[in-house]
């Protein structure tokens, strides 16, 4: 989790989306979504698949026509027909958007030319980006010889190439191995600290918690809540997450806990049971007794602040993984 209370709070937003709306026939995909991102700020749109994240950012970067609402980039209105403003945006689509039969360098050069980068600047910038994404030694290999993680990094590198004001990443770590994922997240953290405005969509709570200064929780096309992690946690401040390290019949134990007053949610996790409960201090003894009677041995107890999963559950009544 990055430092909260960003220093850019008072600066003019790089991106401002107001009341975005989009329907596909009878389906309302985005329903009045508004948010803004300042320079140096990483804003996360957190929601499950189908929540409206991709549609929202497609409208935000001028890929898709809006049914309603307004998008301002550095204070200027952005529409699908606007071309000049788009040079300020770097897009990293959810699907790999690279040419597999071109080399990493050729991919970067091609998109650099589309952004009208001068030839000499492009050459040095390509080398710089290859260094950032860790592909310098594979620069002249065709992308179809790369691993999934390398392709993902190239995908991000193309978005960075023209040094945009706003970097939009749509679930950039989907299908990536843990090692590559960590490398990608580190790169994004670095970019945010260099003054780039970042719009990041994900359905991974951990990524949102780690990367984002502010988070918008989106579900069924609506922005349910928005704020820093701490601000969001305040929404469910009366809830605590109790992590019980345990062994034995965890299923029986979980069933025994579910009936206790104040318990909101019980999850069996690796090596124990996670419980979302109102006022942990009031229910903890009852839970331990119930587990003891169920034949579960408790080896440790940990009480946490609610995480974004709990917030999402509280706001939508369903899990991020639903």
């Amino acid at each position: 989790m990055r430092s909260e209370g960003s220093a850019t709070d008072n600066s003019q937003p790089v991106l401002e989306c107001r009341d975005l709306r989009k329907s596909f026939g009878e389906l309302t995909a985005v329903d009045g979504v508004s948010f803004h991102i300042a320079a140096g700020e990483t804003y996360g749109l957190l929601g499950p698949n189908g929540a409206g994240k991709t549609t929202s950012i497609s409208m935000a970067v001028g890929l898709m026509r809006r049914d309603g609402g307004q998008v301002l980039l550095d204070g200027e209105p952005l529409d699908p027909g606007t071309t000049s403003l788009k040079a300020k945006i770097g897009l990293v689509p959810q699907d790999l958007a690279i040419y597999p039969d071109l080399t990493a360098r050729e991919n970067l050069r091609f998109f650099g030319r589309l952004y009208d980068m001068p030839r000499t600047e492009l050459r040095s910038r390509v080398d710089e980006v290859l260094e950032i994404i860790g592909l310098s030694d594979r620069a002249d290999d065709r992308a179809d010889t790369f691993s999934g993680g390398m392709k993902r990094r190239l995908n991000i590198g193309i978005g960075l190439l023209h040094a945009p004001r706003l970097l939009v990443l749509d679930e950039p770590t989907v299908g990536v191995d843990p090692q590559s994922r960590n490398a990608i997240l580190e790169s994004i953290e670095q970019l945010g600290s260099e003054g780039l405005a970042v719009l990041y969509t994900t359905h991974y709570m951990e990524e949102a918690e780690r990367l984002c200064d502010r988070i918008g929780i989106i579900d069924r096309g609506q922005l349910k809540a928005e704020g820093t992690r701490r601000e969001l946690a305040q929404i469910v401040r009366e809830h605590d997450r109790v992590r019980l390290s345990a062994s034995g019949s965890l299923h029986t134990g979980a069933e025994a806990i579910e009936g206790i007053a104040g318990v909101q949610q019980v999850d069996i996790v690796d090596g124990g049971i996670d419980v979302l409960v109102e006022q942990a201090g009031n229910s903890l003894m009852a839970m331990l007794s119930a587990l003891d009677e169920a034949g579960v041995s408790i080896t440790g107890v940990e009480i946490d602040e609610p995480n974004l999963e709990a917030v999402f559950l509280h706001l939508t009544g369903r899990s991020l993984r639903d």
Partner: protein
Amino acid sequence: MRSALVIAGKDLRQRARDRSVYVFAIVAPLGLAAIFGFVFNPISDADFTATFAVANVDQGPLASPLVDGVLGGLEEDGNVNLVHAASAEEATRLVEGDGARADEDIDAAIIIPAGFSARVQTGRPAELRVVQNANSSLASTLALAIVQEYARQLDYVQGALTTVVSSDPARLVDAAAIAERAGATPGPVAVRDVSASIKQLDSTTFYAAGLATFFLFFTVQFGVNSLLEERHAGTLSRLLAAPMPRSSIILGKAITAFGLGVVSMLIMIVATSFILGADWGNPIGVALLVVAATASAIGVMAMVSALARTSEQGAVFSAIAAVVLGILGGTFFPINQAGGVLAGLRFVTPHAWFLQGLGDLAGGALGDIVPAVTALLVFTALTSGIALVLLRRRLNP
């Protein structure tokens, strides 16, 4: 425009690495043109002479113009050999190959039955008979065409005769002279026009041009369908997010298709000229026709591709369109000689106009290709217009 050229440059680089484009653009058309040229060249370029058995049993005034005038004239020109038979039976046996003159290769027998002239002159039904040799389809069809044309002329004259007879019976004696004049009318000459070498390509050039056009439609689809491939690959969103008008993407794809099409045609023209001896004609005229044909191919394939939702669907639609239009357009055989609806229908394809233009160029001046070039440009305008409307919807979700 700059962005469009950047996109086209990238596409051409990709296509250069994709070997299938070489197959469609060069190997397949060149190979097939060579095969077709070698197979059909000895047949079609040889001097054509038909041999007909003629049984003039009638010996009347209306038989003579056919035998001596029409058929005799063709014999003098060296197009037809006539073998005279004494009876209908002998003529039939000659065609069947078991007569006394079986050494002759008789393609058809033309029989003028006894009383033919009298029946015609008195307004009664009369018939001319043609016995065709099943092994000589082209020559026997020619015999049938000659006789049908003569009969048609007689029908016309018969109407005049009837009128003359009813108003002035004394002039009946002129009937033979009128019929003789009818026989001298240029009906069969029309047949000569159809096969006039001056407006036809030789077989090698025909197959080279036909197959080059046929595969041109496959070649340009590599450029046209790449828009669907961009969408399938996810790169289209990145192109749409780039700071350029959306029309640049379409223009870039069109430039790619045009480059591939023109280069493939150029290679075909040069290769078939030097290797197979094809004679494409005036280079300026050929260049104009190639440019117009390539543009029309892009328009047609872009329209077909725009109807597809996936790149796979686009490839299937394009292949079907290319094959159907190619066959209908007469790229594999001279469909114009089939006559009827099919011969007229071929002009709904750019292929036919391209071949027509080359034929006109071979037998005439540069200006003779104007109709063909105009038709190809009309195809381009119509199909490109439809494609643009469809594609713009796709690019503006």
